[in-house]
């Protein structure tokens, strides 16, 4: 079975060579025989003509002697007859005992003046003879050549031809067989490589020498395999790129077939659902959100991109679902987690609402009091109202500046020039700037600071802003008349530390974290409620952190609060 082509080729060769040999044998034998006969006939005719000539010219010998001599010379039987067909002399028999020869075909032709020949079995000897007769004056001569010798020669020639053919046949067969083996092997190799390629082994090659058509077929297969291998590699590479890309996405991606089975999912999708996506399982087993499933169904049937908001894929999280139909049926769905986006959006909306609230509040007093003063310019509270208007205007200005500061900090565009700053000077300057407020509220202020501290590399205006924020907060919460603020400056390893301690109501531990948030403030009905924007501490913390420090609070209810911040000293670096 394996060498079917070999046996087929071999069978064809055997038939072709055999038929050729047989035909060759037969034709050669025939041609040789015909040529031999015509040669003998020509020879015999020549001799017969010489015999006839001698009978006409030789007067010294008797007819019998001439017949005997010519017969011997020609290796044939010589016969002379007269015009009537009576035998006058014969090389092998007594003429008188021989019948009339006039009706023999060759003699009949000779007696009519032509050379005649005939081949037949001799009546006397019973073997085949070739007879040639030629005319002479008053009769004819004839030579009879026994063909039995030709037959013997012919048999020998045939025997040799047969042997020769047989040897040639065997040699040809051997060559044909070995060529068949070689060709069959080459074809087998091609079949083998084709089978490898069929099984997916695209690296298989025939690597045949391009000798002939088989070699060219092999080369073509190799070339095709090479092209397929390259295209496969390209497809795989782009598939890997796509997979990497899809897996590195933040959005979850899932491919669903037209009959609703999960075909593929990226890693974020796997992480989204706790039991992981199961391939070739119905998508409803992975994602049970009705909005999601409806969107996928709509995209599948309409062949159009559909979007929806799904909230029950993962409890507490909202997803933006985009389902796009695939050309070959089914859909690819992208799930974008909106939780963070919505949180950012909510923060932004809250911020705007808070800013607008904080702007509207002082504007309310300003507008109302201004309108009152326009209506009744001479009222006794006139001065008080104008004072409030001024204070509220300052509050508006402060708020706008803080919002601008915050916007710069958050966009990273704050252009702060760090210079070497002496914190001792900053503290004494800010305390001096606040002295009027402290006096008005009867607040006692103490500063404890070493004579010299290492400078810190900060923007001096920003650090003054932080100090003023902490001092005004402390002043705001101090009980009027009994208030005390202690400011301490100390140098620790590579850090300056500033503490601002008040003896106000203190801050509940649960509130201590939120006071640094934007627009968060803690009110207290027992004291004057704070009228800050809720941005001051947040901005102060951002400033301190910008320069590599920390800002925090330590406090407990009823025991005052201590706000502290650190700044790294340039010397320690």
């Amino acid at each position: 079975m394996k060498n079917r082509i070999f046996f087929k080729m071999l069978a064809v060769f055997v038939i072709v060579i055999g038929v050729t040999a047989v035909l060759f044998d037969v034709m050669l034998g025939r041609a040789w025989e015909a040529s031999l006969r015509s040669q003998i006939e020509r020879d015999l005719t020549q001799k017969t003509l010489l015999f006839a000539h001698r009978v006409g010219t030789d007067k010294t010998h008797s007819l019998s002697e001439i017949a005997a001599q010519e017969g011997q010379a020609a290796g044939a039987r010589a016969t002379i007859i007269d015009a009537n067909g009576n035998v006058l002399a014969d090389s092998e028999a007594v003429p008188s005992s021989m019948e009339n020869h006039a009706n023999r075909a060759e003699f009949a032709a000779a007696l009519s003046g032509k050379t005649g020949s005939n081949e037949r079995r001799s009546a006397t000897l019973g073997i085949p003879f070739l007879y040639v007769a030629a005319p002479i004056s008053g009769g004819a001569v004839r030579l009879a050549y026994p063909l039995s010798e030709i037959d013997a020669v012919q048999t020998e020639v045939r025997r040799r031809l047969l042997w020769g053919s047989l040897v040639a046949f065997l040699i040809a067969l051997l060559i044909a067989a070995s060529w068949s083996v070689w060709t069959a092997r080459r074809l087998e190799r091609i079949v083998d490589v084709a089978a490898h390629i069929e099984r997916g082994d695209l690296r298989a090659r025939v690597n045949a020498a391009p000798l002939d058509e088989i070699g060219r077929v092999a080369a073509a297969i190799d070339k095709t395999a090479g092209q397929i291998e390259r295209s496969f590699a390209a497809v795989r590479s782009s598939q890997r790129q796509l997979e990497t890309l899809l897996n590195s996405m933040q959005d979850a991606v899932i491919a669903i077939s037209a009959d609703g089975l999960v075909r593929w999912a990226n890693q974020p999708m796997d992480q989204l659902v706790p039991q992981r996506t199961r391939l070739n399982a119905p998508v409803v087993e992975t994602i049970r959100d009705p909005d999601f499933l409806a969107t996928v169904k709509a995209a599948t049937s309409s062949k159009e991109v559909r979007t929806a908001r799904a909230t029950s894929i993962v409890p507490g999280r909202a997803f933006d679902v985009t389902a796009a139909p695939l050309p070959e049926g089914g859909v690819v769905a992208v799930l974008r987690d909106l939780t963070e986006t919505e949180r950012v959006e909510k923060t932004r909306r809250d911020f705007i609402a808070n800013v607008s609230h904080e702007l509207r509040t002082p504007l309310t007093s300003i507008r109302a009091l201004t309108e009152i003063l326009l209506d009744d310019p001479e009222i006794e509270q006139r001065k008080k109202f104008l004072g409030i208007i001024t204070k509220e205007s300052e509050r508006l200005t402060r708020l706008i500046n803080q919002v601008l500061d915050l916007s710069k900090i958050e966009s990273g565009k704050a252009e702060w020039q760090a210079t070497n700053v002496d914190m001792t000077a900053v503290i004494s300057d800010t305390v001096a700037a606040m002295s009027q407020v402290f006096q008005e509220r009867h607040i006692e202020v103490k500063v404890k600071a070493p004579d010299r501290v290492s400078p810190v590399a900060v923007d001096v205006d920003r650090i003054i802003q932080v100090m003023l924020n902490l001092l005004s907060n402390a002043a705001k919460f101090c009980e009027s008349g009994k208030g005390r603020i202690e400011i301490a400056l100390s140098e620790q390893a590579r850090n300056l530390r500033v503490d601002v301690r008040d003896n106000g109501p203190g801050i509940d531990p649960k509130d201590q974290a939120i006071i640094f948030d934007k627009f968060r403030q803690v009110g207290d009905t027992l004291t004057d409620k704070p009228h800050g924007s809720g941005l001051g501490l947040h901005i102060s913390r951002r400033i301190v952190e910008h320069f590599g420090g920390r800002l925090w609070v330590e406090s407990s209810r009823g025991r005052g609060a201590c706000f502290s911040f650190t700044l790294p000293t340039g010397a320690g670096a």
Partner: protein
Amino acid sequence: MSKKILIADDEPNIVVALEYLLRRGGYEVHIARNGDEALRQVEAHVPDLVLLDVMMPQRSGYDVCKRMRERPDWRHIKIVMLSAKGRDAEVNRGLAAGADLYVTKPFSTREFIEKINGLLDSR
């Protein structure tokens, strides 16, 4: 007898302005600085109208409004919400809580006093 109005707002300067406006309009004025105090003052004085700031410490204006509307004997008290938050959602929330009017800060003093007079005259 002049009608009683309770101002519940934690912004002292706004209270100053409102107090002046309402006294000039001929009303008896009481003041509360937070939600709880507002409820106590309503209990003590039973005013004809309450001006409620929405964002107050301890108890929001919405909450005070709801609690007041739970008391049948306070049904007649007019409630005016005052807020610097003027979005539709907040206005609706205030009206849903039982307020008769929602005034967004800042406001025109003339229009404001006209609205207050209108509310108290219609009774």
